[in-house]
């Protein structure tokens, strides 16, 4: 079994590494990793373990609207209660978390792809290209990413209102929010990668590659980028937490995911309307889910930053 042997060998390699040691010895990081893994698994398995599909309007039954959760005097048919449309909160939270994670990962990947490419080009080309790209990053870093994402969303809404884009906003809410977040977060990656390129490009291995005729793009991707990936991964992890929070905030403000396809932020917004009548559960359970998810990802990010920092070893 060649596969078995290579897996065993890979595991030996991982379990003997410094990073695994620092992971294993940090109890809070292991806890955070377990929590994150459980949340990820639950979200992947959402269609299997959910009571209903919360995005299917046929499942909404106003007859069972506003049922409280079990620990609030409700029944076991809706363990976390229902919202104002009769949507099961447990299923809605599973699907909502999945949506938050999809948005988070997609926007981080977009920002990373954009930022890494711009950083590589900027650092390698130098001169005017570098100056223009880095000033653009500077200007964008003047503003909080949240504000930029909000503005991009408003621009798309304007284009839809002017019928430049032939879509209904609700139908394209997911790609719009991924695009807004991705375009808001690229400068940090670009700056980090550019800095790494400036350091690496003068080193002997790069000169050697150039002399034997390796093309610039290949040098950048295959030789320089792997040496700059550590900090990029750290930024990406912390960025994931920020992206999830930002998506939730935009949805809460009513400019993110629509009520027909609620993410965690949308669920909290729905619950906010019923807060004054004391019906707390629609807000609290997605709020706790959001906080736990963000806290776990943040803890992993903090650990990764320290583990990859040779000064702290």
């Amino acid at each position, binding site marked *: 079994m060649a596969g078995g042997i290579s897996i065993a060998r890979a595991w030996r390699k991982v379990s003997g590494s410094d990073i695994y040691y620092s992971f294993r010895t940090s109890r809070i990081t292991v806890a955070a990793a377990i929590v994150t893994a459980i949340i990820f698994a639950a979200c992947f398995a959402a269609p299997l373990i959910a009571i209903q599909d919360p995005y299917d309007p046929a499942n909404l039954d106003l007859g069972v609207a506003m049922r409280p959760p079990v620990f609030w005097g409700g029944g076991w048919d809706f363990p976390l209660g229902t919202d104002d449309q009769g949507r099961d909160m447990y299923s809605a939270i599973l699907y909502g978390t999945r949506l938050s994670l999809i948005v988070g990962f997609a926007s981080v990947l977009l920002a990373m792809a954009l930022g890494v490419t711009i950083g590589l080009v900027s650092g390698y080309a130098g001169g005017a290209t570098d100056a223009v790209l880095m000033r653009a990053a500077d200007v964008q870093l003047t503003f*909080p990413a949240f504000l930029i994402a909000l503005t991009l969303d408003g621009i798309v809404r304007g284009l839809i209102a002017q019928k430049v884009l032939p879509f209904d906003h609700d139908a394209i809410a997911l790609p719009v929010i991924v695009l807004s977040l991705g375009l808001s977060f690229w400068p940090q990656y670009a700056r980090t990668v550019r800095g790494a390129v400036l350091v690496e490009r003068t080193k002997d291995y790069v000169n050697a590659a150039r002399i034997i005729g390796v093309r610039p793009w290949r040098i950048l991707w295959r030789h320089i980028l792997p040496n700059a990936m550590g900090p990029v991964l750290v930024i990406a992890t912390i960025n994931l937490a920020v992206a999830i929070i930002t998506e939730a905030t935009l949805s809460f403000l009513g400019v993110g995911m629509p009520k027909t396809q609620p993410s965690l932020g949308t669920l909290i917004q729905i619950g906010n309307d019923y807060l004054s009548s004391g019906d707390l559960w629609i807000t609290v359970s997605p709020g706790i889910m959001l906080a736990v998810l963000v806290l776990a990802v943040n803890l992993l990010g903090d650990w990764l930053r320290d583990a990859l920092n040779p000064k702290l070893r």
Partner: protein
Amino acid sequence: MLAFVVNRLLQAVGVMLVVALVAFVISNYIGDPINNMVGQDATHEDRARMRTELGLDDPAPVQFGRFIAEGLRGNFGISYQLKRPVSTLIAERLPATLELVLVAAVIALAGGVVGGVYTGLRRNAMSSRAIMTVSLVGVSLPTFVIGILLIYGFAVLPKSCVEGMHLFGRMLLTCAEVGAIALPSFGRGDTVELGSWTSGLLTADGWRHLVLPGITLSLFNLTLILRLVRSEMLEVLRTDYIKFARARGLSNRAVNFGHALKNTLVPVITVAGIQIGSLIAFSTITETVFQWPGMGLLFIQSVQFADVPIMTAYLVMAALIFVIINFTVDVLYAAIDPRLRSDRAGTARA
């Protein structure tokens, strides 16, 4: 130093020009101004005539020049949604936002410095660990969730008080006591007109309305400053001059506050300064949660309705405030720390 200031000033103007260009592109190419001004039944000729009268047929650079000139005069057009001049709307809303940001900044600075010094001096005490854990949770809870929880705890719960209510299994407070800690969660309360500035800082009711939104907006920055002060304190307390000060027999008070705290303040001032800009941006969230009639609420509504004049005006205003703050912090920092002056002015703009 002069070269540094001029350099930074040029950079600030550059940022503003880029922002103005973005705002110009948004307002000219996203909201078709004619469509938003005339009704469905305006003829093609009418539209063409209005285009010419408004100068929308001029070359783009000419229009951009006019856009900047109008912007400098404070004219950002008329809101599509509210049918009133944007400059008036913003002037009405600005005091509410600035007062909220001011209160939040004071809470964040005071709480952050006090908490940071305390946890820095007693790093192993249970109370310090508790504060640090709570602050980690505070960073992970989004602003709007904190706001909602505060509204529930201090505005909704007291109203729904039932005599003999049990909280966590034991009776904590009577309804009269609960009613006394109830706080308003909606709007600004009583305000006083001072010329064109409406202030909520001069009435007791205005202050009561400020408490919950002020705390909500400040919490993130409070934890940020707390963690910063703590780590700076830990760093400074390890230095030789602190050991020497103790060896000289100075009182704890003199060492901790006169020597240690003083040396932690430079980075704190920088971070706090930059964070004031983010407070203005994040006040959009707090204002929505508490229906606070400020610029942020106006902006969110303009995004929801694609009300382009308000969006662009808010962006330009926010950019101006950020740029002024960043410029001031840069210059102040350079004035405090001469090392920054020489190497930044020389190499930064290569």
